[in-house]
């Protein structure tokens, strides 16, 4: 992959890592994601994805989060 590719979490493959650059969701959803530890600069790893348009399991700050498909597609990460 090219340097500094920007992908959303749906595009990021399982077991791949990235650093959050942007969350393009509504105000309340963005705040919630922030509070769960997803702020710009945070490293996240996609652990697994659900069936079809199922949710995404992330490893972030040493714990696991599950984010719905729609929201996951609004979280953008940069791959170093």
């Amino acid at each position, binding site marked *: 992959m090219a340097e500094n590719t920007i992908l959303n979490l749906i595009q990021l493959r399982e077991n791949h890592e990235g650093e959050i650059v942007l*969350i393009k969701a509504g*105000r*309340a*959803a*963005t*705040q*919630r*994601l*922030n*509070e*769960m*530890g997803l*702020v*710009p*600069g*945070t490293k996240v790893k996609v652990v*697994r994805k*659900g*069936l*079809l*348009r*199922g*949710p995404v*399991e992330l490893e972030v*700050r*040493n*714990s*696991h*989060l*599950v*984010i*719905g*498909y*729609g*929201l996951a597609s609004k979280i953008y990460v940069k791959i170093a």
Partner: protein
Amino acid sequence: MKKEIVIALAGNANVGKSVIFNQLTGLTQIIGNWPGKTVERAEGVLRFKGRTIKIVDLPGIYSLSAYSQEEIVSREFIAFEKPDVVINVVDASNLERNLFFTVQLLELHVPMVMALNQVDYAIKKGIDINVKKLEELLGIPVVKTIATKGKGLEKLIDKVLEVVDSNKETTVNDYDIKQEKILKYGNEISEYVMRIYNILLKHNVVNIINLFHPLWISLKLIEEDSDIIEKLKREPDGKKAYEEIQKELEGLKAKTDGPLVTLVTAARYDIASFIARQTVSEIHHRITWTDLIDNVALHKIFGYISMFAIVFISFYGIFKFGEYFSGVLEGFFDVLRPLVYNLHIPNMYKDVLWNGLVEGLISAITIVLPYILPFYVFLSILENTGYLARIAFLMDEIMHKVGLHGKALIPILMGFGCNVPAVLGTKILETDREIFIASFMSTLVPCSARIVIILGTIGVFMGPQYALAVFALDVLVIYIAAYFADKIAPGKPYDLIMELPGYRMPALKPTLKQIWIRIKDFLYVALPIIVVGSLVLEILKYTGIFKYVTYVTDPIVVKWLGLPSIVGIVLIFGILRKELTLIMLLTLSGTSHITQILTPRQMIVFGVVTMLYIPCIATIAALKRTIGWRKTWWVVFVNIFIAILIGGILNRILTFV
């Protein structure tokens, strides 16, 4: 020395807060609601070294924003009721995220003690935490605990008492953020905190400053917290202060991209991760059991297979156990019959006594209890192991089709135990819209009482496969009903955001206590209603009043649903408790064999109608508290409509059974 002490337990979800609460308080605890809110409030008392300590278990939350009712309730409790000490319960195996919440408690500058819980799991994950360093950085006592085993709890309370006894009254007059040792947000935020604080001082809105804390209130105003802004505006001169703050914040907004709340949240996480880095040493990253199990449990194919297997096997086990246990109890009660009939009283009284009082009691104990007990055990295990969260993951997409997300399935599944906690539990969801759809769905989920009716009639006399078919039909009905509810409810659906907890071995004592508290409700509340209800019905039977009731209900019950006329009466009593429908049907017919009253087809129609026709009175009360009267009546009406519609259709198409 203060004698009456109030302490609050605060922390994230799944950190063992409730386990600590249960370990500290005895079997007598009050579970009520927060005033004006539908969030559950648990309170208990601990007597320790001659002191009386009131313990309040705050809801498990991740933040002190105005995002959910739980969060507002928690911060208002801390601000208004000023507990003597806040025990911040944190999960040692997941320190950084937990510290994010700790930082917010520190901002409130309340007396605190930290319970560093689940240290055993942290060790298993290969994590070691330097407690001394943590105490030093946070400036509060930290005690290692393993709540499930009761370890460290005595020391925790000792520390709490030390804090209480050393506590000096602190009123903040001149706050300066520069004096903060660990709460360092960077120059920009710190500067704006002081500017906002000065604006508040200038307009003399000291009330709100003293209630919370200068630092916390200023940060909340930077975050544009809607609830705090409302509170500020209500103060004299508050509106002016707010306008000035808004103007001031323009400058900060111009310098930042993205919302200011992200800026503040990121700064808090920087503090949390700084503390974590200083205190946590991960010896080596171990592959945990959780990772291994989840490879199967959350697998795209095997995950679903194992989920269905777990649910199927559990229900089968509950059924088998119930059947056996019920048989044992029945044999035991048969001994009582001659005792009543050998009494020297007129025969009519014997009938009333036996059919009303004893038969009612026997039905309740032999039919309901044997199924309720294993069911609660199953539900507790599902809840306490963390598997419920996996179900949420697997079912997220399906729930999305009805405007909900996987997390909504957790309260809905709780409905299998009892609809009341299910409806109240929908409050974990974010919007009124989701709460409405989920609580509507919950009312159609067969609770233990209705499961018992179906297992005890269709299951016993027609075979478990028919009972399963009825449950499958119910799932379909719930899904279709929710689909329409989603279409008519205003607003937009939200997406899932959920922490995936590690698997836990449920601790025996707290689990048993949880089961006992649930069973207690049945024994103390339901059982008397059933017995008195049976007795009243039996007496009414002799007065002949039923003729007039069935006159009204017959067109629907007999003509459309094809059921015996008497069902019209038991359905009315079933509104009190669903168990009553079956128990009273038996009592009124003077038999304990349902086959003498209902044909197989009638059994199915009766089971389905009882399952769907109306939420019981307790559920209606819970609905009212959760979604208000208007929507509650809508739910009640729709339930009745669905029950009559489907019952009638089944009566017409099931000609082969």
